[in-house]
Structures are given as structure tokens and as C-alpha cells.
């Protein structure tokens, strides 16, 4: 079953690559051609974005709490863009979910600390400030 699942996953990835390639080729041949015109490409991009950026959705953080496992955090938020084996004595590992390291004005910055594979500290991004910033535009 696992082999079948892996095969299926590989096929899906191959399909995605072929679709993107076809879209790019089509884009090159069409005057208004952009691969965003291809609904399949849009779907792939959306899935990819969801896989990598679901931590930017406030509701995804609702179930992230002390005691849950590292695997559960990744399932809820996706793999972190940056992680580290912490040098602090009582922390094993840290996940950072952030938009930009150098963008000090960015408030969308979350941090999760683990000990023995379980969450011990959660710092949720300040989504409220982001909403206010968007509303003020």
C-alpha cells in the first residue's frame, strides 16, 4: 500500500511538472499567454502555496498548543521555513514561521519550541495587526 501511495504521489508530481512545462510553453507561443491562464497550473500553484503557506492562515494555529507533537504541528502549519536545534538547555528544537528575516516591520512571525518532541511554547503571529494594516490601505 505504501509503495502504491508513493507511486501515486510520484505520478501526481510528474503530472504537475508536465502541466507547468506545457503552460510555460503555451505562454511563450501566445500573445497574452501566461501560465496562469491554465486552470490546472493555477490549481497546482494553489496547492503548493497551501502546502507551504498554510501557517499564514489564522485558523490553522487554532489547534497548535502545548503538548502536541512535532508531526502534528507540521500537519497543521506546514514545514517551517527555518528551524534549529536550540542551544537553550530546556529546549530541543525551534520552528520559525516568518515571512522575512530582515523585514523588521513584518508582524507575521510565529515561533514554536519543542522539548522531547512536544510543543512547550507557542508564539502565534499577530494576525490582528495584519488585518488592521490591510484595512487601513
Amino acid at each position, binding site marked *: 500500500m*505504501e*509503495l502504491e501511495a*508513493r507511486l501515486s504521489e510520484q505520478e501526481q508530481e510528474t503530472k504537475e511538472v508536465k502541466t507547468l512545462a506545457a503552460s510555460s510553453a503555451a505562454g511563450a507561443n501566445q500573445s497574452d499567454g501566461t501560465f496562469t491562464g491554465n486552470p490546472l497550473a493555477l490549481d497546482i500553484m494553489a496547492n503548493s502555496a497551501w502546502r507551504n503557506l498554510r501557517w499564514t492562515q489564522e485558523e490553522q494555529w487554532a489547534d497548535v498548543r502545548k503538548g502536541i507533537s512535532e508531526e502534528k504541528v507540521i500537519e497543521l502549519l506546514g*514545514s*517551517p*521555513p*527555518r*528551524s*534549529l*536545534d*536550540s*542551544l*537553550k*538547555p*530546556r*529546549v*530541543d*528544537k*525551534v520552528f520559525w514561521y516568518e515571512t522575512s528575516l530582515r523585514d523588521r516591520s513584518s508582524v507575521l512571525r510565529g515561533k514554536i*519550541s519543542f522539548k522531547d518532541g512536544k510543543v512547550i511554547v507557542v508564539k502565534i503571529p499577530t494576525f490582528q495587526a495584519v488585518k488592521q494594516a490591510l484595512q487601513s490601505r
Partner: protein
Amino acid sequence: MKNKIALAAAFMAATSYSTAEIVINDFLSFEGFGDMSYSQTDTEFGDVDESDNSFAIDQVEIAWLFDFDPVTAQIDLAYEGSDGDQETVVEQAFATYHMDNGGAITAGRYASMLGFEAFEPTGLYQYSFAYDIHDAGATGADTSSVSILPGYAQGVKFTYEGDMTFFGISLQDEVFGYDRGRLGGDNDDNSSYGVEVAGSIAMDNGLSFFLGGAYEAGDGTGGDASDTDADGDSYVINAYTTFETGAWIFAAEVNYGESETGRFFLDSPDGIDVNAEDEEVLSALIMANFAYSERASFTGRISYTDHETDGAQEVDADFLKYTIAHGYAFSDNLFLVTELSYVDGEYDNGASTDYESLLGAVELIFSF
């Protein structure tokens, strides 16, 4: 400092797969560290007094991590050394095929699975290693390490990692460093090989146990036990246990090894090189670490090593080392270690000579 925990370290070595990293894209990420220190060492060996102090970048390492599921690969580039002997080396370079059942096959150059203490400063509780006697030049040896535990080797290994168990077996070019950097050879007495086996189990109550061993068949012409002439067998058995409860971590380790090929400290070209036939070594450590706050911890360690040689020269050397260390984490990736170590030893080749060494060190580690 998670990977200082013994079992975790074993698993890291087993799976050769890191999860702490800066992600560049789905296939590539990086991790690494920089390590600098100031140390002052005073050594007394018989009538010889030597003193040494040093501020230096001890090591900088960048690991390239590739992930092409189910295959991962890692290349560690390290800058290390001191006293004008710095060099950049490929510390590790390997590829791993991960099976669905927890098994993995790794080929390349990788770290030994043996030993409680981590290979890198980011995984240590102290500045110094347990089996380092801090010789500031008094003995005339080129190394102050009296450890018999293996380092890095090239070969192929199979590892299995369960939720609470680990097993690994490795066929490699060397264990104690006689070979020419490859597994195999021609018919000209240079076909050394080594085997390493390790297993561990972790309990729900914080206890873990590790048992491993390594054997190397040195295939040389005999001669003077230089890198390519070593001929004979050597082995080491390594066992340790760790116990973690609350803010405390305790560890105990014992090693026993024998060498016919002159690669342990007394008979080694890098060590004292007494030109013996066989060397027998027993070493051990006990350690306790207490994290008294979110950022800081104290460590106490006592380590012991006893070397005996037979043959042309019968020598007995033993060293007892006391270490206290303090660690303070300014942040998750910046760590300051201070250490004070005292070594009390004796070297007896028919005439007994006392050995003493005092080390003070401050070390700053930055990791990413």
C-alpha cells in the same frame, strides 16, 4: 542542546537526517555553526612545565542538506584547526536511501555511531572532550587526546530506527585511522577494513542504554605503525547510559579497547609512540548536567583513562580528569560555555612521572 542527549545523537548518526535547517527550496537547505574560544592551559609533566593560551576560531561548519525523498544527502564542509594548521575539509559526505519500515542505507563518509559525547561543540555540555588531557606540549605528543573512540570513516551502513530503538551496522575503510581513505585496496598490504555495530533502546522513564563496538583489521607490512604500515587487529567496545529527569541529565560511559597496531595514544605516531606491540585501554566517564533556568546550566564531569602497553616497552599511563562547566544561552542560537578542567595523571615506563594539567576556557558558539 538537544543533540547532546545520547540517544538522540545516536539517532542522528543513524538516520543521517537533520531537521534543523534554513530551507532554500524543497530540495536544498543549510545548517551549521561557528565556534570560537579563548583557553589557557598549564601542564606539568615531571620536571617539564608548559603553558599555552589561545584565542581562535576553532571550527566553522556548513552542512548542505539535500532531500529527494526517499533519498537524502548531506555534505558537511568544515574549517578547523589551530596554530597555523587550519584547513577546510569535507567532514561528511553521504547519501541515504530511507525505507518505509524505518530502515536506511547510507553510503559515503560519515561519523561513527559510537560514543556518548557529540562530535560537534553544539552537542556538548562542556568546552573540552572527556578524554582530552590538555597537554600544552609537555609530553612531546602531537595530540592531547587519549580517546580510543572512532571518528569519521568511509563505507556503507544499514541503520534501523524505531520509536524507541536504534540499530546500525557499518562496513568501512577504517576505524582508528590506518587506512588510505578508501574501503578496499590492492595486494600490496593496504586493504584495511573496519566494522562497526551499535544498538540502543530508550525507555519511557527517561532512561536510555547504548551498546556498540568497532573492529578494524589493519593490513600493512608491520613496520613502524605509520598510517600505511599498521598490521594487526584493533577493537573497541563502547557502552553508555543516560537518564533524563526534569532539569537533570545524567550519563555514564565505559570503553574498553585493544590495539596490535599502535594507534592508541601511547603507541601512536601522534601520541607518545613508545614502540610497543600491544596496547590495552580502559576509559570511562560520569556526568551530570542541571539546567537551573531556561537559559543556563551547570555540568560536572569526571573522566578516567588507563593505557597499558606490552612488548618492547611496557608502559602504564592513567589520567583522571575533573571538569566543571557552565553554559548560558543568549538566544536559541548563541551559546556561551565556560569551563575549568584539572587532569591528574601518572606515566610509568619503569620510572614513574607525574602529570598535571589545568585548563580554563571560554567558548562562544553560534548556530544556524
